[in-house]
């Protein structure tokens, strides 16, 4: 079973993601902000990171993604944001293992992106 780490500050969104991914057969871990996400990442075996961008705390989701990418080239990361401008800005980070998506998002679209990244 693949493990997905969800980094999201809004409880209502975090719960929706967690429920949807658990029901789709993934083991789900959660973090409330980027710093928390990096901590969880160092302690557990994570196969994919799904992160929000604008969150409380010193580092933001995109910065966390960059930190992870500096460490490892192949850990799949999905960055998702509700800020249209943010999506536009960070879309340049997309590559084989990094995908940028925007909120709101359909479950089907999210699951497809996860499967594509994990299948590589």
């Amino acid at each position: 079973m693949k493990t997905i780490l969800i980094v999201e500050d809004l409880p209502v969104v975090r719960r929706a993601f967690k429920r949807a991914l658990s029901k789709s057969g993934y083991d789900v871990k959660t973090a409330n902000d980027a710093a928390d996400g990096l901590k969880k990442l160092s302690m557990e075996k994570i196969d994919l990171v799904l992160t929000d961008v604008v969150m409380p705390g010193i580092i933001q989701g995109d910065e966390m993604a960059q930190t992870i990418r500096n460490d490892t080239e192949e850990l799949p990361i999905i960055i998702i944001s509700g800020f249209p401008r943010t999506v536009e800005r960070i879309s340049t980070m997309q590559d084989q293992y990094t995908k940028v998506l925007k909120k709101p998002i359909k479950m089907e679209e999210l699951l497809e992106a996860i499967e594509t990244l994990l299948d590589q």
Partner: protein
Amino acid sequence: MRLEDILETIHEYTEDVIVVSEAEPIAQPGPRIVFVNKAFTKQTGYEPHEIVGQTPRILQGPDTDKETLARIREGLQNWRYIREEVLNYRKDGSKFWSELSILPVADEKGWYRYWVSIQRDVTAKRTMPERLELTIAASGDGIWDWNIENNELFWSDRFKEIVGVDKDEFVPHASTFFDRLPAADAKRVAAALDAHFEKGEPFKITYRLQHADGHLVDISAKGQAAWGANGKPVRMVGTVSDVSDLVKAHADLTEAQTLSGIAHWNYGPNPDQAVVSDLVWKLLRLPKPDKHEWRTFLEALGPLAAADLQSAITQPSDTSHVIDTIRDVAGHRQHIRIRFKSRSLGGDAFYVFGIIEDRTAAVLAEESLAFSERLAAFGQLAGGVAHDFNNILTAIGIGAESLELADSDAERDEIVDDVLFAVRQGQQLTEALLNYTRQAPLMPERFPLEKKLKELGRLASRTIPVGIVFETELANDLPSVLLDESGFDAAVLNLVINAADACEHDGVIRLSSTADEKGVYVIVDDNGPGIPEKDRSRVIEPFYSTKGGEGAGIGLARVHGFTQQSGGSLTIEESPLGGARMVMFFASHRDER
């Protein structure tokens, strides 16, 4: 009357001194005096019996000019008429200047037997030029003397120095002056001379003269003509002073005022003395009035500002006054600022110095800045609202799609709860937006505040992230206040969510309520980093956030707006928990307790 009697009367009453002495010996001890008139005693202090038989030389002393005496002696020896000015000594030793006319008188045989000397005290005449010379030297003024008939010209050394003319190279002709006068000033000088010559108007003028170096010197000149029998001016004498420094200071002041757009005026010490500088009229876009400057100035400021100004200037004090006013200039608004200080000069006298400034450009710049700030704020609002809605829609959409994956009713209920919560958040967001734009008036009503706060506490505890401790400390008997219920819900939840955002892990948030005679206080504390005092007023501005550059909706501004519209306030303090304390206050209405 006999001729002798007439002569006697002349001797007796003339103010001129008459001395008759024998013609010889001219050499030592000198001719003997045989007669002096009364004026002699008056002038010298010697009685006739003291002087008759003596020589006139007893009037001379150490300061008497030897050359003058030599000339007199030479004249006497040659029986010539003599006229000289000589310094004499009175009996008491004091000096006086005497103008002598000495003529030899011959007897019937043609022998010169007597000298008749007429003497006049000319001390005043001798001293005056000296006094004048000193005065003029002290003033630093130059002197000129122009013979209008033949254009002969005299300049004093000081005048020559002012225009850098070498003493030896000075050409004593009027052209020396007129050649140095620039064409731009020549007309004015000619007009002033004409007015003086024709109408006797005072000649007082400022012009420039070319210095030997080539530069122009600013000169202030005054003069007085003398007119001949035919009524034509024959001569003109006057003074000049170098006012270059003064003219430069004035030019600098005018330049400074032109560059800064600030002009000056003053008023006093008497109510009829006011000076309104030319630049003031330029600034007010008005022609300089011929008279009633002060009245015109006040009228230009408008009745309200004029009344303020009039009342302030008659109360001298150390503080300066500022009056802002808006004028209409050809259909455009002109923002005028006056600053002035009224100073007492003792008694009723006072002196006011003031400046006037056109602030139109500055005001327009401020307004346009405010507009672009509003535009930026609107952009931030749009981004923030989009973010909030996109999150809400994500929660609703994913929630709805997960419903069919639920294994139990309990799980389905949980999902529905979450979806409904998200829907409610969306509803609050639109309401808050409408409140913000004031298109949806608040509907204040009374509702049980204690119960409402408990409900909100439960709701909030589900909203905040796991790992943050949420406590409530709610009072039981809160006075009733009139509030818009959904606005209140949103405000409390906003504060709690905001506190949760600020908290790190191991965060603590406390919702509490209390009341006093003034009203109700709803307080949210957190143990986050707090909000520095300098940021406290900014964070309640719409769309400002400490959460990084991209904003986070309209959180605190929403709450601030709501409390204000509800007759209360939002204040930010330091929390006993270590972070920020947000205090919402709502006034209780006395008649509704």
